[in-house]
């Protein structure tokens, strides 16, 4: 059986169906992802405290401590702070992602990590943003909106 989506009504119905589908999957994912991740994340530390387990954390370096540094992540409007035990060289403002063993009082001993400096992150954003107008111009150059068929069609 071939499904023909040739009228505006059928297209609108399909669009609404897909929108409903993606919203449903999105809600289910957001509600359940924290229970299924390979590592516990900072988010479910608020509901349970898996001390001694390897967890995954991403956040911004706030300050140095004697034996490490302080990492914070914004979670639902609240800043959660973690004391990271490590001799990794970082600077306040750096973005760090790591796996580490959770100790008492929100302290974490790093096992593996990646540090992204603010300039590196901004450079990556800049490189990415450049692509948007480039693709937009290319699209407009090769495709046009056909008002009769109500859809994009290749330019001759």
């Amino acid at each position, binding site marked *: 059986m071939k499904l023909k989506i040739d009228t505006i009504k059928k297209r609108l119905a399909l669009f609404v169906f897909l929108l409903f589908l993606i919203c449903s999957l999105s809600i289910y994912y957001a509600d359940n992802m924290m229970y299924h991740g390979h590592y516990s994340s900072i988010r479910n530390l608020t509901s349970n405290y898996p001390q001694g387990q390897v967890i995954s954390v*991403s956040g911004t370096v706030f300050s140095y401590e004697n034996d490490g540094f302080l990492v914070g992540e914004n979670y639902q409007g609240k800043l959660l702070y973690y004391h990271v035990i490590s001799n990794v060289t970082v600077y306040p403002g750096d973005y760090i992602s790591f796996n580490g063993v959770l100790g008492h009082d929100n302290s974490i001993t790093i096992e593996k990590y990646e540090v992204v400096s603010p300039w590196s992150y901004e450079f*990556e954003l800049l490189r990415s943003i450049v692509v948007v107008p480039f693709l937009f111009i290319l699209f407009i150059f*090769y495709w046009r909106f056909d008002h009769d068929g109500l*859809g994009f069609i290749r330019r001759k």
Partner: protein
Amino acid sequence: MPDWVGHVVSAWILCRILSLKYEEFNTANIVLVMIGSILPDLYKSFIFFPDLKNYLMIIHLPIGTLITAGMLSIFFIDKKRAFLLFTLGILTHYFLDMLQMDFSGGIFIFYPFNWYQFTFGLISTDNWYFTLLILGFAVLVYAVTRFIKMKKKF
């Protein structure tokens, strides 16, 4: 994620090579593949809506990106072709994303059927040498494919 230059150029490289054999990979269609290659990163719009981050993450999962591609394809006269071209771009995106380090365990590639996470974890997320490598490879592919196409003409 590798930056968008890396994603778009990788999609172009693949299409350019495929264009040697398949006429479908003309410049207009390649543009759709290139758009598809950055489609999963639409979820980055959470920057403007931080509270919706977990909800927008669905766009950066294969099932969510495919549905998004389906929704976009509705706005094309040749919907099926547009969808397939977007999908090819999406595949290149996930391949590149899986090469990068992911400390959460990787992408939930089979969601909603399975919560299995996967990543190769080979490159750093902000590694711009990788983008340079892709750009260099693109120049090489352009030169070689141009040579082959000219040879075919004469």
